[in-house]
């Protein structure tokens, strides 16, 4: 009987003439926007990466020199590897910090919940640059933390290793991007039917077992979505490492920025950008194969 219905459905699907869904036209503005600000710049970037920068400007002569330069100098590859490592580590750190926070937010009730969610959002109304910059007056030699430590007599001289290392970059990245992790996890936890937790308890699961077997799997869409967002954002970052990283924690974004802003080698910068984009798209593709693209971005459940 099921076979018959399935066959019927297939038959009716095939018989139906191909027609545009009603409302298909509604996506046209979004599509235009995407083409204009997403696809066209990418094509330009791709073209430029195959041209040549000279002191007189861009020469539109097709060649692969930029890519040859990049792949022959292992500095670029080292920075690329370091970038992926930092992005991955910041993602994991954000996840570790965000999950308990999101859980706490989701389990709050009524007014308290509104207030707490607002508090979590509040810093994100400030610019990203300021949120990175703010760590300088906090952690610098004359910064707040050193002042307090000196005043308390914990140290005799100000500590100068707070800033300008990889650790500070993690701190900055996690602080700047954590919301993109917290929010999807919070949403998936908030949507979780509390009756499922009751059902698990009823069936004999202790709180820890309930978490592992019910809460965690059902919040995975939020976790995946958050990890994707933070990883993508951290891969392309350059302000945070520039302000907080110092020379040892240079990221790929910094190299690209310097080609455009200081070295005036736009073609090489374009080639570096293309490599980063391809790499990130590759990561996304692999993750999409495993979990489905829709889940990665929408946090859509089951």
């Amino acid at each position, binding site marked *: 009987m099921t076979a018959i219905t399935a066959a019927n459905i297939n038959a009716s699907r095939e018989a139906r003439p191909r027609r545009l869904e009603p409302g298909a036209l509604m996506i046209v503005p979004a599509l235009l926007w995407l083409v204009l600000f997403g696809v066209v710049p990418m094509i330009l970037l791709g073209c430029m990466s195959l041209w040549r920068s000279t002191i007189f400007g861009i020469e539109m002569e097709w060649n692969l020199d930029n890519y040859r330069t990049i792949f022959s100098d292992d500095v670029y590859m080292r920075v690329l590897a370091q970038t992926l490592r930092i992005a991955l580590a910041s993602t994991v750190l954000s996840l570790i910090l965000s999950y308990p926070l999101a859980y706490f937010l989701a389990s709050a009730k009524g007014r308290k919940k509104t207030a707490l969610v607002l508090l979590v959002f509040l810093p994100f109304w400030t610019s990203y640059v300021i949120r990175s910059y703010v760590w300088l007056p906090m952690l610098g030699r004359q910064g707040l933390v050193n002042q307090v430590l000196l005043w308390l007599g914990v140290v005799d001289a100000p500590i100068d290793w707070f800033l300008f290392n990889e650790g500070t970059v993690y701190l900055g990245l996690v602080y700047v991007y954590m919301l993109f992790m917290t929010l999807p996890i919070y949403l998936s936890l908030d949507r979780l*039917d509390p*009756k*499922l937790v*009751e*059902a*698990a*308890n*009823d*069936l*004999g*699961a*202790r709180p820890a*077992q309930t978490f592992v*077997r*019910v809460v965690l*799997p*059902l919040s995975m869409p939020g976790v995946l979505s958050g990890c994707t967002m933070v990883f993508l954002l951290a891969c392309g970052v350059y302000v945070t490492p520039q302000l907080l990283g110092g020379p040892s924690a240079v990221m790929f974004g910094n190299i690209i920025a310097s080609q455009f802003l200081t070295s005036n080698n736009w073609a090489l910068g374009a080639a570096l950008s293309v490599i980063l984009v391809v790499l990130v798209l590759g990561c996304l593709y692999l993750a999409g194969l495993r979990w489905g693209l829709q889940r990665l971005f929408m946090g859509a*459940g*089951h």
Partner: protein
Amino acid sequence: MVTAPARIVPSHAAPADPMSLVRPVAVGIVDVWKSFGATTVLKGVSVTIGKGEFFSLLGPSGCGKTTLLRMIGGFEAPTAGEIRIDGKDVGGLPPYARATNMIFQQLALFPHLDVFENVAFGLRVQKHPKGDIAAKVKEALALVRLEGFERRMPDQLSGGQRQRVAMARAIVNEPSVLLLDEPLGALDLQLRLQMHEELRRLQRTLGNTFVFVTHDQSEAMAMSDRIAVMNAGEIIQIGTPEEIYEQPKSRFVAQFVGHTNLFDGKVVAAEGQRVTVDCAGTPIVAHAARPVERGSNVTVAVRFERIGLGAKETTIEGRVVERMFLGGAVRLVIGYSDDRRMTADIATNGVTPSIAVGEPIAVGFNSADARVLTS
């Protein structure tokens, strides 16, 4: 908090309560109170449920029946009073430490687990050996007739099938007490009738105690060994479905269970259990389970279907105001003595009585079918 010893048989349940006298006690609820903030939802409820009994908590929404069920399951703590399961005080025990399992109103199947894993959940968290789990899940799925559905996800099942998964998931743990929180509410009528049979069959096969919460009186009557009728946080009456139906103690029970005419009046004559009540000029001969005094105000309850055409011990003459064909019966709303209304269901037996709206009519009932309410 409560020092009174657990009474095995609450006094008000004793006379009409043969079940709990012969069976060992599965659930004992002793003077349980529950308040949420300023609202008191349970006001000193006591009831004893026997082992292997199919027991229903019946009442309108907000009467406290679900709260009582959730307290047995360990999801709410009583504000005062004691709950005992298999003779042990379970106060303070979380749900996972109780020998109860609940079938939830919204079923609460785990959406990320297939049918097999849903049913196996309880066994897995209680660390049963792997081989055991497969065998037990198979057995439970066979009991609810869901063999072959092991690898389906809950959203690939029909309402009735989901219902069966929820049942299998609960019974596979062999709970001493199975709690059912209106689990059939979402199903259509046909499926519900089918599930009534299924639940009865399961309960007979397994022999567990079932505590069933419902607001549907026909559902409660069809399935239960005994029913506790609840209203506004109190148990109004406990008894077998027959007792509840035939001997309602109060106005509330008479109206909530089945369709009932209520006649208010003054007792004008009493000879033993046979009394005559004057209801605004209409004399009604009724049966009083407890002696009533002449001159006292009482209410007489008469079921719609116990009223027939023609003269009986009590005869009422009036005019047909409304006529509805119900299939097995014709429902007549009859106006009598000025502006009073009563309703009679006249069995058709294949021949529909030819009575039209506006025609004069005489209907009657015998004293055995007219009960004086005792409270």
